[in-house]
């Protein structure tokens, strides 16, 4: 019987377990879980702070998931090395787990730059795990002034989560705009204004050069006092185990469309991996939940001897702040088509007759039709793209394309 080991216990791991079990109903699966809890919906931690997600509803799978799939889960244990020659994984308690197929589903860790004086800050947090959310909840039991370093997705979601609980929130970022990795200048401005209307204060193009207790000395010369510091500068993939074992690692663990790493019988999936991004043709870490689940499942199927391939990964995000919804996908290259409506704006990027990416702000109805155009590489010449830009509707497709969509099993 084939023995499976999974390092990490998040969404990618859950997808991997389901993938393995879809092919092999009985080979033993061991899951090494650094966090002391079943796989949960990580993006919900900010909703938890807001009181919008109850802890008992945050698990990613039903309570009997690991029993039903026959997994042994080692809670609170960490894998510390992989020995690809002996095909074992060594844990922090010294145990060596033998494997026939291994999946790295270790996610990513907050990146904490070496700020001067960081050790003098009494209340500092990152925002990645349920434990982080619980700690922040406690730290904000009494009204506090909060400084968040990083105006990316995680920093801003944290700000939204905390906004009802604290006296003030200031967000600083070295970039000159919010959400700089997914928004262009116009989009960022719209979102920033909206966030400011909800009480957030921004220091952009600015960062902390030195901490002194509860004071931050800024690059632009100012100083700022705060009670609670949240570091949300970025994340780095947990790829070290594979790198140390001699596997190919870029920013994340390099994988092909079968989620195989360069080490034999070692797979990787989710935030720790980098596979090809169809919208730009290069390998990229796509640190999003759908990707973690799909990559995990692909890895699992192949680990168990099946044949799965995940070829149409693209970056995409649906993110809302205080009721304003933003959706982005793909790459922002090529010709730009912009549509401004009463309720928002849409921007499309096309190249070589294909849709490559989009940014939608406040105009999100049926956006999945756009996402599908990118993922399926649908030639724009075959559809009424002018209509589609205005309204996401399959009426812009040919009758035969519609017959496939609505007249068949899909």
């Amino acid at each position, binding site marked *: 019987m084939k023995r499976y080991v999974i390092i990490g216990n998040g969404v990618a791991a859950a997808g991997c377990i389901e993938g393995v079990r879809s092919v092999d109903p009985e080979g033993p699966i061991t899951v090494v879980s650094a966090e002391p809890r079943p796989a949960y919906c990580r*993006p919900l931690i900010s909703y938890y702070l807001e009181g919008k997600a109850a802890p008992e509803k945050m698990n990613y*799978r039903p309570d009997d998931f690991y029993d039903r799939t026959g997994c042994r889960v080692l809670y609170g244990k960490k894998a510390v090395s992989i020995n690809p020659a002996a095909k074992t994984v060594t844990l922090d308690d010294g145990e060596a787990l033998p494997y026939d197929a291994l999946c790295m589903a270790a996610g990513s860790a907050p990146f904490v730059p070496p700020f001067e004086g960081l050790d003098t800050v009494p209340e500092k947090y990152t925002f990645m795990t349920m434990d982080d959310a619980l700690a922040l909840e406690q730290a904000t039991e009494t009204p506090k002034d909060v400084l968040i370093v990083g105006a990316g997705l995680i920093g801003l979601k944290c700000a939204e989560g905390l906004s009802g609980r604290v006296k003030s929130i200031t967000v600083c970022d070295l970039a000159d705009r919010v959400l700089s990795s997914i928004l262009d200048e116009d989009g960022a401005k719209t979102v920033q204004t909206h966030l400011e209307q909800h009480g957030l204060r921004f220091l952009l193009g600015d960062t902390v050069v030195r901490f002194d207790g509860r004071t931050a000395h800024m690059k632009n010369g100012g100083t700022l006092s705060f009670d609670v510091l949240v570091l949300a500068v970025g994340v780095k993939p947990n790829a070290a185990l594979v790198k140390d074992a001699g596997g190919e690692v870029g920013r994340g663990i390099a994988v092909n469309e079968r989620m195989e790493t360069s080490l034999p019988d070692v797979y990787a999936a989710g935030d720790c991996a980098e596979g090809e991004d169809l919208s730009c043709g290069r390998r990229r870490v796509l640190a999003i*939940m*759908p990707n973690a689940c799909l990559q995990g499942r692909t890895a699992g199927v192949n680990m168990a001897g099946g044949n799965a391939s995940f070829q149409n990964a693209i970056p995409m*995000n649906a993110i*809302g702040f205080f009721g304003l919804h933003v*959706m982005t996908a793909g790459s922002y290259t090529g010709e730009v088509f912009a549509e401004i409506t009463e309720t928002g704006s849409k921007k499309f990027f096309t190249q070589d007759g294909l849709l490559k990416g989009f940014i939608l702000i406040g105009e999100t109805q049926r956006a*999945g039709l756009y996402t599908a155009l990118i993922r399926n590489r649908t030639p724009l010449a075959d559809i009424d793209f002018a209509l589609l830009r205005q309204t996401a509707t399959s009426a812009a497709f040919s009758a035969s394309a519609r017959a496939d969509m609505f*007249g068949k*099993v899909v």
Partner: protein
Amino acid sequence: MKRIYVKEEWCLGCHLCEYNCAFANSGQKDMATALKGKPIYPRIHIEGKDAVTYAVSCRHCADPLCVKSCIAGAIARTDGVVTIDRSRCVGCLTCVLVCPYGALAPGEDGAMQKCELCLQNACGAPACVAGCPNGAIVFEEREAEA
């Protein structure tokens, strides 16, 4: 498994299916009290261009992207039917971003809604199909192509 299919050449664009859907899922006994004078939030909607109209609802995909993408684990596929636990939904719209058919939309309370084939409500079978005056929506078994 039985699924909903549409015949666009038969659709009149009368929007009756939208009303029947909203009523079936309202939990009320009388259509007028349930719907009259209020905005409705059906799980099926009419799309079209020029003379062509047709009804769009969840395709109950064999390999549903929404299930794999929901950040709250709120969408599941059980015996082929894709259902949503609305009490878990946080309204992030990730499912809207991935569904290739545009089959999900928020309900009145902001939580996402989708067609569950009326298997959970008092109808027990799709109300849109039963009420379509021209047979433009059908509920039947079709073969998946190999």
